[in-house]
């Protein structure tokens, strides 16, 4: 009889989304109904009559199922707005990267100081990189709409992606700074034969940052 009660409850909630909430509600109902059934049998009702009383006492579960469906929906509008904002930031950053060489070319044409052109170029690169980092940091974190396994997987994936994009951004800064240092020091000192070492130092710095990030994560 207990199995028949369980089957009946399963049948009632067939249309409800398969989430942990639904599962818990079904578990809760079956437990209570079975306890009621045993009480009725202990009072002297025969099994069939007890089962029928239990089933008749459930009532209309329509509203319960509606509630379960409601909590399953996320907000697609907010998600789209966040995506648009993110796309805008990325576009501006890429544009700044491309345009960063323009001042250098103009300065060169006008026979002005090359160092000033390079300085402006790196300011633009730094700003663009900063924008990308800000964009990644504030990106809407994937929120679980419900406790299904699929949602958990999506969240895990989003988490991993977030971490990686942060690393990419930091790697970008380190390289920009390395190139900036290379040109500035080389132009200032004229020691082109040795300044290539800066690239190796840059690589080392990048790897150190990566290790620190990995360690702080775990």
């Amino acid at each position, binding site marked *: 009889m207990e199995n028949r009660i369980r089957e009946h409850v399963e049948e009632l909630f067939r249309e409800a989304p398969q989430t942990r909430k639904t599962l*818990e*509600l079904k*578990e*809760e*109902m*079956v*437990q*209570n*109904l*079975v*306890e*009621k059934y045993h*009480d009725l049998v202990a009072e002297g009702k025969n099994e069939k009559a007890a089962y029928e009383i239990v089933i008749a*006492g*459930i*009532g*209309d*579960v329509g*509203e*319960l199922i509606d*509630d379960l469906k409601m909590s399953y929906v996320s907000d697609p509008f907010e998600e789209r707005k966040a995506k648009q904002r993110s796309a805008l930031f990325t576009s501006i950053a890429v544009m700044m990267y491309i345009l960063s060489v323009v001042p250098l070319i103009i300065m060169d044409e006008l026979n002005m100081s090359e160092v000033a052109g390079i300085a402006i170029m790196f300011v633009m690169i730094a700003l663009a990189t900063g924008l990308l980092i800000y964009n990644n940091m504030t990106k809407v974190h994937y929120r679980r709409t419900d406790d299904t396994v699929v949602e958990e997987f999506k969240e895990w994936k989003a988490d991993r992606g977030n971490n990686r994009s942060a690393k990419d951004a930091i790697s970008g800064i380190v390289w920009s700074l390395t190139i900036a240092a290379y040109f500035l020091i080389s132009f200032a000192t004229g020691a082109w034969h040795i300044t290539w070492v800066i690239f190796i130092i840059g690589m080392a710095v990048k790897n150190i940052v990566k290790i620190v990030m990995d360690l702080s994560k775990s």
Partner: protein
Amino acid sequence: MSITSDLIRGHTDTIILAHLMQTDSYGYEMGKAIQQRTDNLYEMKEATLYTAFRRLENAGYISSYWGDENTGARRRYYAITARGREEYFRLRAEWESAKTMIDKLIYLEDNSNGK
């Protein structure tokens, strides 16, 4: 009987909160208590009860936890929160004033006879 049921159903939240003011409880125990207090005249449907649990829990008036029964299935217990207590007293005051008003509106003869 069905009109009485409708009237009572409008106060499901108050009834559940009142029960939980006494002690933590689970679905069947509450249903049984309600039936016994009304001398078997009113039986709350399971669906009504669980819908109310969800509503009250979402509102933060009650919280739930799974018991650790040694034998058989685990029960889901409900406990009243501090906000739930406030809500209970508010609902009770509301009912008191409604009761007084309805009495005045429908016992017209008694009122005129008394004066």
